[in-house]
């Protein structure tokens, strides 16, 4: 049966491993706006130059939620430079694929991460 979203996307949508506010985050990035429908907040905890923990809160479609979860999972354990070099193609691979019209959600998640890192570096 042909499905709109892959099994991998649905799994993350139904059971995101990294959702939630991080009270002790030292970098927070907010992206999106009420106009376009997706709003994401990415939280990171950086220690000794490495991202120790990452979590998200997302108001958006299944793809937005899934890609938020993916980016958080992918950055944990990486240093900032590695984290910044993650591409949306690598993210989408984790989901096997995304409908063409949903690819922008992965870009948004990356932007959220970048903003969180910027926020951390400002502090």
């Amino acid at each position, binding site marked *: 049966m042909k499905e709109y*979203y892959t099994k991998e996307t649905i799994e993350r*949508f139904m059971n995101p491993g990294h959702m939630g506010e991080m009270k002790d985050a030292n970098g927070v990035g907010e992206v999106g706006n*009420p106009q*376009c*429908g997706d*709003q994401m907040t990415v939280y990171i905890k950086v220690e000794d130059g490495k991202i120790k923990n990452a979590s998200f809160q997302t108001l958006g*479609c*299944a793809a*937005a*939620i899934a890609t938020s979860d993916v980016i958080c999972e992918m950055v944990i354990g990486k240093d900032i430079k590695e984290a910044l070099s993650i591409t949306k193609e690598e993210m989408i691979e984790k989901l096997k694929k995304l409908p063409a019209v949903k690819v922008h959600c992965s870009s948004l998640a990356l932007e959220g991460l970048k903003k969180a890192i910027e926020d951390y570096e400002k502090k």
Partner: protein
Amino acid sequence: MTKNIYLDYAATTPVDDSVQEEMAPFFSEKFGNPSSVHSFGQEALFAIDKARVRVANFLGAREREVIFTSSATQGNNLALQGVLEKEENPHVITSPIEHKAVLEPLKNSKAEVDYLPVYRNGVVKAEDVLEKVKDETVLVSVMYANSEIGTIQPIEEIGKKIKEINKKRKRKIVFHTDAVQAVNYLPCDVNRLGVDLLVMSGHKIYGPKGAGALFVREGITLSPVFYGASQERKINPGTENVPAIVGLGKAIEEIKKNNPKKTKELRDMMITGIEERIEGSFLNGDRERRLPNNVNMSFEGVEGESLVIALDREGIASSTGSACASHSLSPSYVLLALGLSHEMAHGSLRLTLGRGVTQGDVNYLLEKLPPVVERLREISGRGSKK
């Protein structure tokens, strides 16, 4: 998936058994071209004319006033373009909550289009139509019932007002209505409504996809939009989709299978049930002037497409006005026209009932929706504003 509950009847409906039966012979048994002079052809012609009589009777119209189309979108295009083509400087009055099949042909015509105010309840006012009429006005187009929020427009009232104005006008204003969502539940006598053009669709009324009908009042001439042989009074030339037209005719005859009273009861149970169980939930559009089968609500802190996907996982088919579920970046223009914020428009869920829906289905929805909303609010970190 344990259950399979369809709550998207406004999108399309299953073909009724009696309709399928009626259509069956016309695929490989009585497959003639209605334009052929031989018996095969005449048999097919007889069948579509029978369907024509059924539609005409339903509308209180004459047979020759009924044109078959491939869809309501085609019907709307034929009607609107057909009226406007020959006009020099036409002015058209319409609502901003029409279906794209009405808005787009108007936008792409030479007409100056004037949009009626749509109030918070999603209903236009007949007197606003009068206010906008000027010398150059040639056409008024207002849908009978809206597909997203189910609100019912005052067509009969508008029809009366136009009839009055037309008495004193040399150039009569033509009144068109897209009745696609109304046919199931509302009276569609064209003389009672006072319309000159009316469009309906087969697959919204338990008939097949691929057939619609356009009522063109005697005396109204439509310029052709495309050309060919002479079927359907040259307004819709092309070999007729006989099985689908036969299906449409039967579906119209079976309209009485709808139970507006019971549907309304289930609808209201659903609305109050949701309001009681989920905080920060709001009904979109007038509560009373509303199709018996339409529930459209917005939820704070939740996005519509994720609601639809989550409900789909629970075996419930629904729809949303969120941009994420459309192919554009903007949410439902209908919800925005009501004055909803972008966020609330994105957080909308449409559930539309139909013949197959039971009390049990409503109960199941009321059981499954609240935890879905709660989980999505956990993920967004935005509960309802208390």
